[in-house]
């Protein structure tokens, strides 16, 4: 029994259920939420430790051996993702104590948040393709409800697009699973990988691969399927935006990494070439979209899209170094992007707007906040010695080694444009004088209130993580390298899952 593989799913589910039990008591829900997230983080560290020891941690649910039962598998990539989930869960849980309004809390904010975390953790850990679909849906339904909490005009508009495109993606995913089952007659991912090697009708396999690419591409907000993301992410409550920005699209990226290293690795000249151009398009359109925006959270939303491109580039190049870069990029990106959204929430709390034209004067009155913004912002743009520099460095170096000149050039250019966007936010929100039309009363009050401290705490912690990855990157690099080695050699995964077959 490897309990640590199941616990990251069980703990948020249990926390969510207990929160429902205390429906009328906001205080109990807050306590449970923080305790549950802390437990999730603790278990994720445990999981990471045992993955370090054993390579793959496998658990067959109900003792039905693979490929007949549902298997939970954690390799290094899953363990890293679960660790990041735990970190983000705790950061958001603490931040929510101050940022979530009482009406949101009354309508099930905490239960939904933990249900979402359970769905995310389930997607990272499952070793069964249909089970992956089920976890996606668990995650989606929770995210739908979280996105419309509050029921404002913009939220409704955003939600219609978000719901439609995600359901479309689910339907394509389900169809692809159906066709795949028709070809190989199994749902266990390791077993699919074995049987797919023996299939003669490779044309059909390519079609199925393309369907998976489209389905996960929509979830990951890859070019040209990303339009739902900038239309919806900036509409929800800010803690929800931060959680979505950090984790949800990365589930799509994780699914792409898993499926295109384990299952569809036979025809990289077709699938990975396609991915390469998708990555280039994603980087470029995302960053150009951001350049045209003048709203704090919209700029950040477009940057999620452009950063997804770097991760996909790591996968598309499909060399050991590129995969290290991809995994490293995911780690860096989740922390940085969540942090930037949290900071936009603090700016909103202080000045009551996300519009860059109305923001201003933050540097003069809140120098610490400005410094805290600069760390993730410059890291996102790839300025040394922050985490983003090393992430970009590895990916771009892999691109040069693979002699993919055009895409590497685009990646470098996008880094420069990212810097432009971040400097735009810096100049408008922090450096510029506060416009006369904006009410700066809460800014003038020098003392920081207790609830604002709760919003600062996760921001400081995440900024420290960014600095730590930048200044002491070796352990993180080792983790990414460990993970890339496993991804490049799917036979380890297959043996770990099917080795227990009687």
């Amino acid at each position, binding site marked *: 029994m490897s309990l640590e593989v199941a616990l990251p799913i069980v703990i948020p589910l249990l926390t969510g259920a207990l929160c429902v039990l205390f429906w009328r008591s906001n205080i109990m829900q807050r306590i449970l939420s923080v305790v549950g997230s802390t437990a999730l983080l603790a278990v994720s560290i445990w999981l990471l430790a045992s993955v370090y020891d054993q390579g793959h941690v496998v658990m067959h649910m109900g003792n039905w051996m693979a490929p007949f039962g549902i298997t939970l598998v954690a390799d290094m990539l899953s363990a890293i993702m679960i660790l990041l989930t735990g970190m983000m869960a705790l950061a958001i849980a603490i931040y929510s104590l101050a940022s979530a309004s009482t009406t949101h809390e009354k309508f099930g904010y905490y239960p939904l948040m933990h249900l979402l975390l359970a769905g995310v953790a389930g997607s990272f850990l499952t070793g069964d393709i249909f089970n992956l679909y089920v976890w996606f849906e668990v995650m989606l339904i929770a995210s739908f409800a979280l996105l419309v909490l509050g029921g404002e005009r913009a939220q409704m508009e955003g*939600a219609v697009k978000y719901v439609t495109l995600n359901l479309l993606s689910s*339907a394509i995913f389900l169809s692809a699973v159906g066709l795949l089952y028709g070809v190989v007659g199994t749902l266990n991912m390791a077993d699919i990988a074995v049987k797919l090697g023996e299939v003669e009708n490779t044309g059909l396999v390519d079609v199925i691969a393309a369907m998976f690419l489209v389905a996960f591409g929509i979830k990951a907000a890859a070019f040209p399927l990303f*339009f739902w993301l900038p239309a919806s992410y900036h509409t929800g409550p800010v803690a929800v935006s931060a959680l979505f920005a950090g984790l949800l699209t990365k589930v799509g990226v994780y699914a792409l990494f898993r499926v295109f290293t384990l299952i569809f690795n036979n025809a990289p000249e077709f699938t990975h070439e396609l991915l390469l151009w998708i990555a280039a398009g994603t980087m470029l359109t995302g960053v150009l979209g951001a350049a045209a925006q003048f709203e704090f959270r919209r700029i950040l939303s477009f940057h999620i899209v452009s950063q997804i491109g770097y991760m996909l580039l790591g996968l598309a190049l499909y060399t050991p170094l590129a995969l290290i870069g991809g995994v490293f990029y995911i780690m860096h990106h989740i922390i940085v992007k969540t942090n930037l959204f949290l900071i936009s929430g603090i700016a909103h709390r202080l000045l009551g707007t996300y519009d860059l034209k109305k923001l201003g004067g933050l540097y003069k009155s809140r120098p610490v906040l400005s410094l805290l913004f600069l760390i993730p912002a410059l890291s996102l743009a790839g300025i040394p010695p922050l985490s983003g520099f090393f992430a970009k460095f590895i990916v771009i170096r892999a691109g040069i080694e693979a002699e993919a000149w055009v895409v590497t050039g685009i990646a470098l250019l996008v880094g420069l444009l990212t810097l432009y966007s971040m400097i735009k936010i810096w100049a408008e929100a922090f450096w510029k004088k506060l416009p006369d039309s904006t009410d700066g009363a809460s800014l003038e009050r020098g003392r920081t209130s207790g609830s604002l401290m709760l919003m600062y705490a996760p921001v400081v912690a995440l900024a420290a993580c960014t600095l730590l990855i930048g200044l002491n990157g070796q352990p993180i690099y080792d983790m990414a390298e460990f993970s890339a080695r496993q991804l490049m050699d799917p036979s380890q995964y297959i043996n770990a899952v099917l080795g227990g077959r009687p």
Partner: protein
Amino acid sequence: MEPILAIAVGLLYAAAIYMMLRRSIVKLVIGLMLLSNAANLLIFTSAGVTRGAPPLIAEGASLPDGIVADPLPQALILTAIVIAFGVLAFAVVLIHRAYAILHTDNLDQMKDTDT
């Protein structure tokens, strides 16, 4: 049997996409319903249709006798139907609320959050 089912699947997908491309959000949700049904029928068809052979194992035996229908796709479809039901119930409530707040069912007039 399979060719008929295959044509039905194709028609369902076509109808679903046609409905989703309309401007009305009600038709959008109808399109989503058709889409999920199309996917379910596709699973059913692509896994192979076997007539009149329930997957029952005779008493005392450990394997079924001869070729039997595969029960797994049906379990998958059942799961998918339940999930689609829940998600679509949400979608119906969402369009109702969206109509109440936005006073329109026309997707072309929901462009405020676009870029």
